[in-house]
């Protein structure tokens, strides 16, 4: 039997970049379409009141001061993903029920889908991209790999930030304490038992 070898993708070409490109093309079509119908561009609110239109913000993210242009309605999750391309933060339910989007704000696990980017202010944001230090994985990250505590991986960033916070508060948690800490993080693949094992293992090695 002939074995098909998949063609290597062009260097620098990613699924995400492809999708973004496709999205822009689609948007372009719509704009061109409305132009053809003779419609004027929608008037944007011009008031100078706080929050109207686009705001330029600076935000401390993973130890760096980052600039971004967002609207008042932009959630922190969207700002991180779309403005800073920090796509490790996942948006699961987008209504504060699943905790996949958990990030730290001043070290406190917070739902980024339920936080407005404008409200972060001077506080310091840590995302999954900032958990590893100096090229070395955080012990819970290593333990999740060792214990295979991920399946589809969508809840993993949130799980890691939640368990890493737990271990920062409590260096020797019981299984019950890990359960309580992660009870808001939903994993639909069912990795919860492995998450608990991995967290306890990380605690033992820290």
């Amino acid at each position, binding site marked *: 039997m002939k074995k098909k070898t998949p063609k290597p993708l062009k260097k620098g070409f990613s699924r995400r970049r492809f999708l973004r490109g496709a999205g822009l093309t689609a948007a372009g079509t719509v704009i061109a379409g409305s132009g053809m119908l003779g419609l004027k561009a929608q008037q944007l609110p011009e008031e100078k009141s706080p929050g109207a239109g686009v705001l330029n913000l600076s935000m401390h993210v993973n130890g760096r001061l980052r600039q971004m242009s967002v609207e*008042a309605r932009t959630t922190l999750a969207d700002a991180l993903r779309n403005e800073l391309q920090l796509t490790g933060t996942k948006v699961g339910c987008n209504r504060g029920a699943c905790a996949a989007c958990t990030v730290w704000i001043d070290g406190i696990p917070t739902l980024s889908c339920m936080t407005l980017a404008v409200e972060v202010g001077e506080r310091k944001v840590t995302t999954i991209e900032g958990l590893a230090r100096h090229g070395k994985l955080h012990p819970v990250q290593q333990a999740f790999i060792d214990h295979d505590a991920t399946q589809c991986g969508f809840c993993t960033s949130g799980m890691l930030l939640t368990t890493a916070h737990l271990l920062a508060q409590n260096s020797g948690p019981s299984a019950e304490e890990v359960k309580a800490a992660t009870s808001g993080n939903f994993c639909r693949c069912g990795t919860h038992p492995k998450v608990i094992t991995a967290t306890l293992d990380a605690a033992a090695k820290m």
Partner: protein
Amino acid sequence: MYLKEFKFYRPGTLSEALEMLSNAENGALKAGGTDLLVEMKKGLRSYSELISLTDLAELKEQNEDAEFVRLGAGLTHSEILDSELVRKYFPAFAEAVLQIGSNQVRNTGTLGGNLCTAAACCDSAPVLIALDAEVEMMNKKGTETIALKDFFVHNRRTVLKKDQILTTVVVKKCAPHTGVHFEKFGLRQGSAIAVVSVAALLTIEDGLCKDARIVIGAVAPTPMVSYNAINAIKGRPVSDFYEKSEILLAAGKAASEDSVPIDDVRGGAQFRRNVLNTLTQRAILTALRNCNMQNTQT
């Protein structure tokens, strides 16, 4: 699921916030946002202005005098759990707060927000009503105080006027020999919405139940006081309070008869009545045990 556009205001003081609120056309106050933003994302509510209460130090205050503990409405649930005052005087309230949402939600959601959302299944209200809590509401004209039990009008409706901000929850310290307990029945252990909840407060004197408060949650449009359950136990000797005793069965039955539950995805009305019956008895017994424990400690 993006939010609709709104203007965002971030006042630094309470008086600034009141000014913005009175000038707003269709404004809403945003505390933690864990309920508000969800409803706005779902399209159930829309506002042209959001006024953030996050920066108001006035709403974060907590203090006590001889009779009362005052808790700022802007305290997050996690801050309530960490509060020395709450842990010392109202451990049952802390237990109830621990059952709100998830860790992450408790880190953002606030006491005032939980009360103002006024969900029938609100976890913080039953205990606070049992503790005879009052709330202070402020507008530009001044401050109004109302008993928390009268604050709720209907599911998701309160007496709070459009220009008012809920600023403080005032909780009366318990009389000596008082035990309090909160029971919640949800469909799972974590991040559960209450299907039925009960708060019980008992004050014991000379072996009699001198004072009692039974508040039931998630079984009526608002958290409500079950007066018939209270009458069933008030004045009775506590030696008659034991599992399946006549008095307890009567109290459980009275509570379930006072309730007006609905059928929904989490349970049918009759199921809720049955659970409420049992939960009421359990809450009374545990409140009594808490009272006895307190007595042995002092």
